[in-house]
């Protein structure tokens, strides 16, 4: 089962490697990991997308909690939540493809954020499925480069992750 784990950690050097090291040392899967400081600069927030049985996910959250730098851990996929991921795609945009790319970007509510005679950079935000669908819609040969941020997640409503 796929799970989205959100955690707050002390914004200390080495905190990221402790978490990455935990996943590799204990053989847990890691699909994506994002990290950035929060509005409180002493705290970083991570979103980890992982897969595993219920027992494995329970161990993952316990092991994450056990790290001294970890302030809070929650499996946000246990309840209604929102996931978003940012993607930038550099595509070949010449001839008929140039117009087609523009139309496709509009359909997906993507934005073209860089333009040259021969290329576009298209920015798209959404859940993983939407991003995957966009990539699938583009003729494969036209994709020059893609970069994805990994998933960020937040719970809906009153469920709040705070230190």
């Amino acid at each position, binding site marked *: 089962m796929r799970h989205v784990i959100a955690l707050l*950690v*002390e914004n200390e*050097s*080495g905190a990221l*490697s*402790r978490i990455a*090291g935990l996943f590799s*040392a204990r053989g847990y899967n890691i699909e994506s990991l994002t990290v950035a400081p929060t509005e409180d600069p002493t705290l970083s927030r991570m979103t980890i997308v992982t897969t595993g049985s219920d*027992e494995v996910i*329970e*161990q993952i959250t*316990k*092991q994450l*909690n*056990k790290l*001294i*730098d*970890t*302030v809070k851990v929650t499996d946000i996929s246990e309840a209604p939540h929102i996931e978003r991921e940012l993607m930038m795609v550099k595509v070949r945009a010449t001839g008929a493809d140039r117009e087609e790319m523009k139309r496709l970007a509009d359909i997906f509510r993507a934005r073209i954020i860089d333009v040259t005679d021969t290329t576009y950079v298209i920015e798209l935000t959404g859940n993983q499925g939407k991003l995957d669908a966009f990539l699938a819609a583009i003729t494969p040969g036209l994709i020059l480069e893609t970069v994805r941020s990994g998933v960020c997640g937040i719970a809906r409503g009153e469920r709040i992750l705070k*230190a």
Partner: protein
Amino acid sequence: MKMTGAEIVIRSLQEEGVRFVFGYPGGAVLHIYDALFQINQAEPEREIRHVLVRHEQAAVHAADGYARATGEVGVALVTSGPGATNAVTGIATAYMDSIPVVILSGQVPTPVIGQDAFQEVDTVGITRPCVKHNFLVKSVDQLAETIKKAFHIARTGRPGPVLIDIPKDVTAQLAEFHYPKSLAMRSYNPVVKGHPGQIRKAANALLKAKRPMIYTGGGVILGNAAPELRALVKKLGYPIVQTLMGLGAFPGSDRQFLGMPGMHGTYEANMALHYCDVLLAVGARFDDRVVGNVDHFLQEPRTIIHIDVDPSSISKRVPVDIPIVGDVKAVLADLLAALEALDETPDQAALSSWWEQIEAWRARKCLAYTNSSEVIKPQFVIEKLWEVTKGEAIITSDVGQHQMWAAQYYRFDAPRRWLNSGGLGTMGVGLPYAMGAKLAFPEMPVVCVTGEASIQMCIQELSTCKQFRLPIKIVNLNNRYLGMVRQWQELFYSGRYSESYMDSLPDFAALARSYGHVGIRVDRPSDVEAALREAFTTHRDELVFLDFQIDPRENVYPMVQGGKGLTEMILGAEEL
């Protein structure tokens, strides 16, 4: 008044009440060693005694042994680069057994970190997977608080080693010294009290048991909960097994103690652990060496209550019905109170028929062995050691057959008397553990039970023992083989003894003498007791190396083979 980072280190250790530091100097820690020298000279009454080991691995092992024997935090001090890498085995050993140790390592100066400087290594990176936590101190202003945090983290919750990496320039910088009186860490607040509802549930389940069993581990010793455990076991009248790490929390010579469970556990311990209907696990972690094949263990239905300070130990390998997270001492006290409050007693009829069954299992006398008048049996040596020391010595061991024989045949009646590497299984710990224990308790007999292979992994410490006059007794069960490897090769590799025979062994007695100690070689069973008595009387104040030439064919039984269930034991060679 401002002082240097090096002085701050020593002053902080004083604040923590540190009496011994086990270490080895080198370039990156020279300022710290200088501060130690000067402060000790100025204030001899507050001396922090430095024990100069001969290899950094032994520094951490000795600090670890000191911690195991006393319950206090052990302290090791090593230099950067090879000093730190040599310490890693010691750190990992302490980590696997949850032993509170603070390791101070020197680091190259901050401006050259990352430039492959002389004796530079990423110590924080290398040790990260085998410490409870570690720190790199980048500024002298953080030094005192970091040391305070390190001791706090090491000794609270599930204890463990904490490393502080200190760059050389930080030890030269000046700062005001304020040692924090208290700490508030939003990210680290170990649970102490157990959930009252869970404790009540546990009390109810225990009283309803028909075939109850108590299974305890190293957590009871680490949590200083032996008195509470004894009270509970006596109150209920239930049988108890203790793991290798838990021996001594409940008296080994008490009838309610069934022995050690697991791979080399007793028949009665393993059978009772398997066939019980309510199992109370306390500070134990259902290790693979304890429950054997997990699927086989789970075939038998039972209610499991698990008390542990570390939530991640609960339901890690075996699903638990009644988890209780908390400090074992506090939870056991609350459990006792909950049992009192219930005003019920265990089902005596069920309990007495359960004990009847257990006594039938015990009647198999699984630890019986055939003694010999020709060749020394290792079990006999341990039994005699128990007699001669009246069961009151601190016993350390290395890893292998001798470790199991010591665990099986020396009955530990008190906690912190049995020091060995259970989790990591580190050969070489025995002598440095004995050093740490002897420094802590100079009046107690301290014995290192070892083998000719293990002892050679830290034998250089015989030199340290001479310098610091540590009259440890070394009981070397010398079978000329890597005994446990040989046993597995005999049983599972058709007797192909690949690299398990040690040719060209030293004359250990002569070697001990060359270090300035007493060395005695014992070849005949009839000389065993006299040699032991001589070591503890004539040579009471000297280190004595007793080199017992034992039967090289002797194996450790009972044995649960890897992958087998607890009830599928081999009780002796005749069953093969």
